[in-house]
């Protein structure tokens, strides 16, 4: 546990005059389940976009496995081992379920266009390996029976799972989940909690979770950071967060009466 898996130092981004994220400091250790919570517009998804290179930070830096990520580039970041899902599901809708996962396996099983044209042994071997790996990933999420149907035909909860499966296909060390329980009913959320736990054990991956569902966050996360107006308001275990008066005032207080 010497070097944290991911560490940010004074990370910030400014859109015009608006500091969407400012002085964001935190660290995640290997295999940790980390929750990122905060009111709407607090900058949670912006943090994700900074971590995955969708946005370039205007200040601070990101260290992944002790190495600073310079000049963020999404592909390099993916290859380094950060994968993510999206708040509004972004599957390859017209592709089959298994092909969605295979896109995630794309760079780990390379072969050239000529291999593909002449159906060389390398091509066959890579395709067979991809098929097998994709199927075993789908099996973890109980999606193997839908392997050949189009992703858009899956029910909502299963689409969420497929997105996680696709992200895991890139063999990440850190998985970022952006509101995985959004739009799910309590039963589906409970199932998702189980899935997240299984994912962490099976793939020994650290998970950073953005979530509005307090039950889910408090239930499974080991550490939680609370974000408000782009800055970290509080940082600690679920117990500490629950008892932090600032957090209750900023966020939980409004939630509780519902």
């Amino acid at each position: 546990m010497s070097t944290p898996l991911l560490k940010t130092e004074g990370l910030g981004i400014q859109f015009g005059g608006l500091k969407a994220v400012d002085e964001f400091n935190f660290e995640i250790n290997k295999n940790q389940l980390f929750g990122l919570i905060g009111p709407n517009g607090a900058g949670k998804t912006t943090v994700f976009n900074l971590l995955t290179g969708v946005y370039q930070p205007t200040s601070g830096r990101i260290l992944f496995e002790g190495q600073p990520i310079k000049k963020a580039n999404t592909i390099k970041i993916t290859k380094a081992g950060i994968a993510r899902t999206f708040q509004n599901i972004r599957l390859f809708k017209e592709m089959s379920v298994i092909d969605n996962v295979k896109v995630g396996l794309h760079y780990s099983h390379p072969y050239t266009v000529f291999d593909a044209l002449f159906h060389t042994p390398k091509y066959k071997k890579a395709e067979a390996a991809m098929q097998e790996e994709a199927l075993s990933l789908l099996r973890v999420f109980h999606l193997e029976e839908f392997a050949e149907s189009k992703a858009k035909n899956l029910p909502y909860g299963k689409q969420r799972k497929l997105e996680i499966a696709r992200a895991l296909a890139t063999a990440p060390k850190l998985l970022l989940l952006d509101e995985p329980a959004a739009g799910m009913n309590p039963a589906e959320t409970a199932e998702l909690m189980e899935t997240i736990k299984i994912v962490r054990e099976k793939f020994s991956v650290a998970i950073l979770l953005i979530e509005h569902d307090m039950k889910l966050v408090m239930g499974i996360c080991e550490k939680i950071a609370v974000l408000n107006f782009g800055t970290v308001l509080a940082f600690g275990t679920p117990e500490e967060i629950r008892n932090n008066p600032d957090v209750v005032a900023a966020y939980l207080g409004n939630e509780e009466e519902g």
Partner: protein
Amino acid sequence: MKKLLKSELFKAFILSIVIFAVLMIGTATSFINSYWQGVLILCGINIILAVSLNLAAGYLGQLTLGHAGFMSVGAYTSALISIYLNLPFIVSLLIGAVAAGIIGLVIGIPVLRLKGDYLCIITLAFNEIIRVIMNNLEITNGAKGLIGIPMNTNLVYVFIAMIITIFVVYSIVKSRHGRAIISIREDETASELSGIDVGYYKVFAFAVSAIFAGLAGGLYAHYYTVILPKGFDFNKSVEILVMVVLGGMGNLKGSIIAAIVLTVIPELLISFSQYRMLLYAIVLIAAMILKGTGKGEQIMERLSFFKKKDEVKPE
């Protein structure tokens, strides 16, 4: 999946041999007269154009309107080589295709940063630039057209070129490269975050598409023996795009069938003389309307030789 791929390829292989045999017997026994041979050659060329455009427009999802431009690069390059350098036909065809591919690469790298309408307009502009260049160069004989191209194209060449095109595009689409290309169409950001080099694959698909457009152009030039710059204008690009759209974006079988149908219909309507284009337009509109309802797909399904697997439909 692997077995299925194999069997699908195998079926296609058998089918193409049967079609080839029928064509050869047909021409040898003059059951297919020279007029219909010409129609068949045009069918083959249009299939190459539609299938190759489908890679860029259908699978990659980048709507381009410059396919005739690449076709003309291939046509003029191979024609000039045949006329002045006297190289074998196949060599000039290949050089034409490569030239179109290089132009595709050069155009693709800056242009593919644009999306949607902007890409459409800029590729359209490229098409016009090529046409204007061909119209004004000394060596291409300007608007009078390049004449004296040896008539080397025959049904065999066209058929083989067509099979190669379909095979290459099919193989790419069914490989990891194809999945990368399709994922870009579906969601560029998600694709990039899955580790796909979006820029590379865009240019790759665009260049491959251009190569085969150039090949089709070479075949076209060596069949008609005369090529005019206005034969490769905006209308030609639209004509090819219509085939792709009618056959279905990202549907190879559809492109093939649509290319045949849209080549043969104008020939069948020839007896209506001046009403021909009117009827053609009506057929086109009807086809587009039918396509949306799923009736068209049913007809296509019945026409197509490989049955689509039933999809597992979750509730």
